[in-house]
């Protein structure tokens, strides 16, 4: 028996378990990519429109920060790459991370790995199986990129190199997730660690691209996007990605030999022998359990805000040196920095919703792992338990959103020498609070009423993201875009603050929460 005996059996098992999850990932990513590619062709089919694109979008710091280096933007191929990059690259990295952790640490934590490992299985078979699955999924997404590009008659070599770049991001983050799964003890922590790595890679690439310096080469995303498709493609950056991915996977394999089964690389420290006075209520417990997650999100979102804020001055500079953009903005009467701020705020709000949903969904995990049973057999009622938890979810959302706005506000205040920016950005971030809470409330209503559908809220969030970010490009119908609560928040500072939609959304959020409580009190808790 080798270290890898039984790998293919595990791959088949994983395919069976993922027969819903995997197609959802693949179909939504390829669907999104294909429709973006197709939409771009129609929008920029004349030389004039391509030139305008290069002059305007190519000069926008926000676009560069989010999408990558402005390469070959005067050609339809370059524009397509630029428009598709963000969704494809972030999407594939998320897919690789979630799939990998799901089949490694999360399984090990749940004790399922133990069950199969006791059979005829090599010690590293589960690691390899998860790697194979995530890599194969990444290659499929990469291939779908190539097919989408070829289907609209873009140049083959450039399409291929860009598809390779997208796929290699998947491979790298499969490796990252495999390593993360070895280092920490819990699936959620492993996801958090890998997402942090993704965040750091993204920020390095974004700052490097906006400032046009070598920092981008410190990030695997910078390598992947360094292939410069449609501008005389370079293949060698793919080599960097592949080498790094292989090195990461090998490291993960090596780490399995350095740790105990079920344990992390760092042994868990012992805790206090008795509880502190704060740990004496459902609320205290909720705070304690979500403390780590809240701290991580606050720090991460502050950094993301800082990253966006720190390039605010470049936005101004770019326009100053770009007459086409100056015209556009002069004509519309919109302040370029404000337009940038509005985009940034929407993105910060969408990402913050990740915290809110993660927090609300943990209620379900508490239930299905039966940890809540001893709790609910004390005089603590379900309502009190869930209310304590939601209090932390809501105040945590407020904290994370404020931190993100503060990070962006303080840095843009500094680089623009305009202290008023702090208030603008913090206030602007908080304008999204009702929308974020509404999505969280919806998740809670599902948790109370139809918990089986609960994980669907992630798809919903992805949908809102598409509506907010790609709605225009895909020319989605207005009513569809209007389904997203984020389209109802006034785009401060571009638009004046109006209270009516905010109050309405807060009201709907409250109704959702109330519905959640009512149905939670009626239903059976999970058994088995």
């Amino acid at each position: 028996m080798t270290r890898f005996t039984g790998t293919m059996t595990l791959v088949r098992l994983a395919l069976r378990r993922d027969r819903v999850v995997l197609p959802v990932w693949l179909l939504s990513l390829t669907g999104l990519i294909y429709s973006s590619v197709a939409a771009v062709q129609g929008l920029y089919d004349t030389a004039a429109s391509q030139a305008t694109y290069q002059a305007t979008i190519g000069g926008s710091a926000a676009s560069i920060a989010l999408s990558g280096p402005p390469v070959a933007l005067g050609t339809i191929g370059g524009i397509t790459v630029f428009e598709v990059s963000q969704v494809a690259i972030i999407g594939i990295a998320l897919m690789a991370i979630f799939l990998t952790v799901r089949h490694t640490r999360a399984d090990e934590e749940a004790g399922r790995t133990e069950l199969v490992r006791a059979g005829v299985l090599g010690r590293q078979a589960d690691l390899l199986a998860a790697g194979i699955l995530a890599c194969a999924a990444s290659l499929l997404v990469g291939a779908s990129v190539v097919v989408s590009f070829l289907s609209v008659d873009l140049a083959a070599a450039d399409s291929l190199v860009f598809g390779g770049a997208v796929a290699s991001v998947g491979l790298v983050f499969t490796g990252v997730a495999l390593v993360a799964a070895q280092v920490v003890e819990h699936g959620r922590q492993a996801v958090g660690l890998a997402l942090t790595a993704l965040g750091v890679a993204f920020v390095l690439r974004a700052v490097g691209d906006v400032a046009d310096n070598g920092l981008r080469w410190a990030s695997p995303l910078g390598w992947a996007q360094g292939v410069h498709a449609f501008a005389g493609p370079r293949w060698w950056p793919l080599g960097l990605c592949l080498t790094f991915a292989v090195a990461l996977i090998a490291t993960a394999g090596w780490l399995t030999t350095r740790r105990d089964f079920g344990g992390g690389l760092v042994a868990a420290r012992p805790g206090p022998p008795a509880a502190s006075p704060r740990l004496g209520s459902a609320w205290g417990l909720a705070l304690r359990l979500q403390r780590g997650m809240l701290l991580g999100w606050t720090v991460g979102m502050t950094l993301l805000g800082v990253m966006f804020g720190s390039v605010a001055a470049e936005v101004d500079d770019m326009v100053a040196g770009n007459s086409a953009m100056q015209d556009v903005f002069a004509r519309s009467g919109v302040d370029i920095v404000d337009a940038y701020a509005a985009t940034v705020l929407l993105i910060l709000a969408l990402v913050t919703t990740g915290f809110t949903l993660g927090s609300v969904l943990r209620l379900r995990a508490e239930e299905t792992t039966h940890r809540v049973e001893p709790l609910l057999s004390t005089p603590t009622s379900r309502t009190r338990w869930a209310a304590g938890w939601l209090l932390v979810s809501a105040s945590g959302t407020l904290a994370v959103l404020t931190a993100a706005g503060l990070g962006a506000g303080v840095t843009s205040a500094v680089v623009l020498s305009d202290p008023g920016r702090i208030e603008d950005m913090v206030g602007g971030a908080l304008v999204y609070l009702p929308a974020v809470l509404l999505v969280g409330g919806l998740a809670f209503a599902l948790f109370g009423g139809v918990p089986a559908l609960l994980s669907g809220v992630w798809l919903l969030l992805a949908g809102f993201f598409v509506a907010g970010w790609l709605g225009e490009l895909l020319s989605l119908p207005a009513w569809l875009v209007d389904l997203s609560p984020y389209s109802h928040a006034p785009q401060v500072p571009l638009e004046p603050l109006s209270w009516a939609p905010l109050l309405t959304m807060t009201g709907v959020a409250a109704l959702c929460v109330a519905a959640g409580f009512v149905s939670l009190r009626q239903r059976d808790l999970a058994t088995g």
Partner: protein
Amino acid sequence: MAVIEVQGLVKDFGRFRALDGLDLTVRAGEVHGFLGPNGAGKSTTIRILLGLLRATGGEVRLLGGDPWRDATTLHRRLTYVPGDVNLWPQLSGGEVIDLLGRLRGDVDTARRDELLQRFELDPRKKGRAYSKGNRQKVALVAALSSRAELLILDEPTSGLDPLMEEVFQECIREVRDEGRTVLLSSHILAEVEELCDRVSIIRAGRTVESGTLSDLRRASRTMVLAETVQPPADVGSLRGVRVLDLVGDRVRLEVDNEHLSTVISFLAGRGIRSLESHPPTLEELFLAQYGDQPGERPAEQPGDRPGDRHLDSLRAPAADRPVDTSGGSRR
């Protein structure tokens, strides 16, 4: 007065009927054993008693209240140990014990520390760092350190070693001596036999036996082991007798209690050299319940009841029993 009064309890999960008219009465101050093969519905009943599940039908009274409607007030008066203890990975065992105590509103630090010592439990470890048995001890210490009048224990000792099992039994005796009530679901029959005043045996969601152990024994069979001068060859033809083993002048048999004296006189007629008889152990009762009347089990749907796979291992020895020649000294 009954602390738990369950009549005709029905619980459906979708189209699957997990409880099908279950009865259970637990009187104040008794330790009540709750037995049944895997998947019989013990944990489901307990979850209904705790208000975690809602009964589909039937009557349930717990401490004079309705376990679903009055859950929070009733929970002041009871504690619970789940069969499969899951702890929060972020919290140490000591923190969990204190938290549950505070939520119940009765914290007795001295008692908690004493129990930690008796169970040899390190309260500083966190969630997963505990072995299965130690996780269970955390829940046990949390439950036993309270003064609640009712303890609901769902297989509380399935992971304990024999030494800790002994400590557990001691603790339960103390609880009983204090006049408190215990509902104890368990597969460890020796433990039930040791601790319980009365037992209820359920199967496929229905109560099949209920009463004191001696009641159950009286209503069942006695094991007889005899050596006679003349070989008791035709003892098997007597009413109510089942011969398990007959070699020369030695016989091992099972007899319905009502026919016990007929058998003894018959054996006396053959000249008794030695005679041993004992009431059935709980294990024998239990196995008889599931082994002897396979036809009475409702149409088996093994697919519906994953737990039932274990039942086969439980039934196998019982079915074998009539031809078993070596098991005579079972307890």
